[in-house]
């Protein structure tokens, strides 16, 4: 099953099983079914609870929060996650504040879905990875779609926590297949550690034997796996990969047994340099494991640049499989 279909099925399942759930967003209704077709079929089956909206990102997220405040649950789709910037106030100053600023916890089950990332040639305003701008907002949880985490389990779990959440979805990942039953390919296997959606742990033969631990969000997993394959075959460097479903707050406890064995840790993400998610992850790891590390956590991220449209230019800016490969070689051999 492709990731897009997995997400689409999850939304169907949510609307089916939870009568509180509403889905809002631009162009999400059939027959169009959303810019990336993730909402296909929803409006036909659930016309009352699937609300195609005007081009109003702020009000889409605000209305989602209003629904949640009233006791419903809401999934808002931002057509291109870049436009979440227009909903920053509703997310940061309303939704995330409302769960705590009234002196008692206020449940707000809502998820803002943000298709992110480049490699589709959409250019500087439609290709970004804005995760880092939402890191560290009290009362706002950040998730990322991954080929290891079934959205059918993830979405209900996030809504049940009733903390406003942003779900980042890598646009290229949509067309890739989900990994199921613990198998990635001929070389790699995976399991899930930790509570809830948990952290996917990808390994070669033994999850406890490796030279380096790579941490990457779902959208970076494919490139990380490609790099890991080359590292093994060309350099005999064994990597384990951790893919957390929840980016923030980053749960350092769940994969701790793996991290404790790692002398070398690299964090890869598509976001551009400066104030990155990886820097936050590194900090959390340093706090817990500084003494056991051979060197500080190595950050791998895109260049400090806009994301160009032309393919050859975009490739220069964004993290590639080779970027990860080279960084790991350097970190391990250092």
């Amino acid at each position, binding site marked *: 099953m492709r990731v897009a279909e997995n997400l689409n099925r999850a939304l169907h399942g949510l609307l089916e099983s939870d009568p509180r759930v*509403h889905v809002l967003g631009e162009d999400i209704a059939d027959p169009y079914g959303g810019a990336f077709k993730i909402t296909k079929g929803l409006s036909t089956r659930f016309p*009352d609870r699937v*609300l195609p*909206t*005007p081009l*109003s990102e*702020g*009000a*889409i*997220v*605000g*209305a*989602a*929060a*209003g*629904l*949640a*405040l*009233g*006791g*419903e649950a*809401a999934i808002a789709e931002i057509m291109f996650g870049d436009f979440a910037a227009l909903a920053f*106030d*509703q997310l940061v*100053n*309303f939704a995330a*504040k*409302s769960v*705590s*600023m*009234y*002196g*008692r916890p*206020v449940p707000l089950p809502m998820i803002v879905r943000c298709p992110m990332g480049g490699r589709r040639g959409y250019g500087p305003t439609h290709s970004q990875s804005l995760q880092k701008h939402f890191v560290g907002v009290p009362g706002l949880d950040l998730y990322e779609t991954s080929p290891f985490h079934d959205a059918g389990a993830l979405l209900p779990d996030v809504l049940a926590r009733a903390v406003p959440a942003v779900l980042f979805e890598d646009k290229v990942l949509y067309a890739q297949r989900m990994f199921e039953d613990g198998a990635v390919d001929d070389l790699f296997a995976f399991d899930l550690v930790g509570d809830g959606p948990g952290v996917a742990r990808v390994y070669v033969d033994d999850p406890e034997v490796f030279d380096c631990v790579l941490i990457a969000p779902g959208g970076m997993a494919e490139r990380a796996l490609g790099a890991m394959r080359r590292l093994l075959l060309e350099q005999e460097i064994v990597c384990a990969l951790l893919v957390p479903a929840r980016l923030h707050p980053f749960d350092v406890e769940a994969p701790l047994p793996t991290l404790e064995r790692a002398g070398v840790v690299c964090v890869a993400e598509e976001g551009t340099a400066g104030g990155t998610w990886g820097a936050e992850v590194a900090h959390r790891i340093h706090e817990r494991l500084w003494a056991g590390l051979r060197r500080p956590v190595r950050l791998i991220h895109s260049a400090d640049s806009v994301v160009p449209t032309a393919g050859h230019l975009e490739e220069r800016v964004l993290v590639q499989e080779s970027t990860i490969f080279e960084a790991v070689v350097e970190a391990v051999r250092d």
Partner: protein
Amino acid sequence: MTADLEPAPTAGAAGADPLPRLGDDDLKLLLTIRHFERKLLDLFGQGALNGTTHTCLGQEYVPVALRTLLEPRDFVFSNHRGHGHYLARYEDPAGLLAEIMGREGAVCRGVGGSQHILRDRYLSTGVQGQSLPVAVGMAIHLRRREPGALACAYIGDGTWGEGAVYEALNMAALWRLPLLVVVEHNGVAQSTPTTAQMAGTIAGRAAAFGVEHHRVGTADVAAIRRELAPRVARVRAGDGPLVAEFATHRVGPHSKGDDTRPPGVIREAEEADWYRRYAAAHPEHHSRWDAVARDLVERVAADVAARPPSDWDAPCA
């Protein structure tokens, strides 16, 4: 949907008409809000309050008039100038003052303060325009689960500069949502006169969305209720949103001690003040309840000030 295209000047509005005798309840509530707000400015002056506050001096009659038109099942969204909105709904000066002073018994444990309050179906936030989209979501919910209930959002004239207002109005009109937008048009936003920050009129903007607009130009509580009752009933019945624009006056400062309006404008607001006009028209009724309200607020203030600080299971740095 009809739209009232009449411009909405503030000057002279709600200031010249005679004020008929009020019911005791309404008068007591109006005066309680007045004395509550004055007390706050007092306490600020003494350095007894932390942060800032925005009083609704001069505008008390707006939520008091709306009180009987709103029902417990309605969800009210308030703003930075919300003490009157809260007191008209709950008559709980102690809880509100405790919130503002950070004392035991605070509605939100002192976390929210003057402009961030949540109680049952009442919520205020301090970011202008932010509540309207949220009210849209709430209106979708209410229409689905409790037909006949409405979402009511108070905003000022200055807030019509925020894009969120238009995103929400558009949605509310498109989807014919039960949304009542109450505009307290006091002619000024912080220090900026409306004439320097609004092109066109609120009526014209509502008309652009096909949203019904009604201008209230009086402080006569009974007359306001008569005018608005059938219009609010139409909102409940599913005819779509209503913008009720009150031409009113801010008698006090924006927050505290920051009134930079020219003396003539301030004088005009003071002359239009319902408090002064009611005292002139009904001196005996006014003074009887004025004493009661003043006394009530004094007692509440003494009680709250003597309480221990509010507690919150806060995460610590």
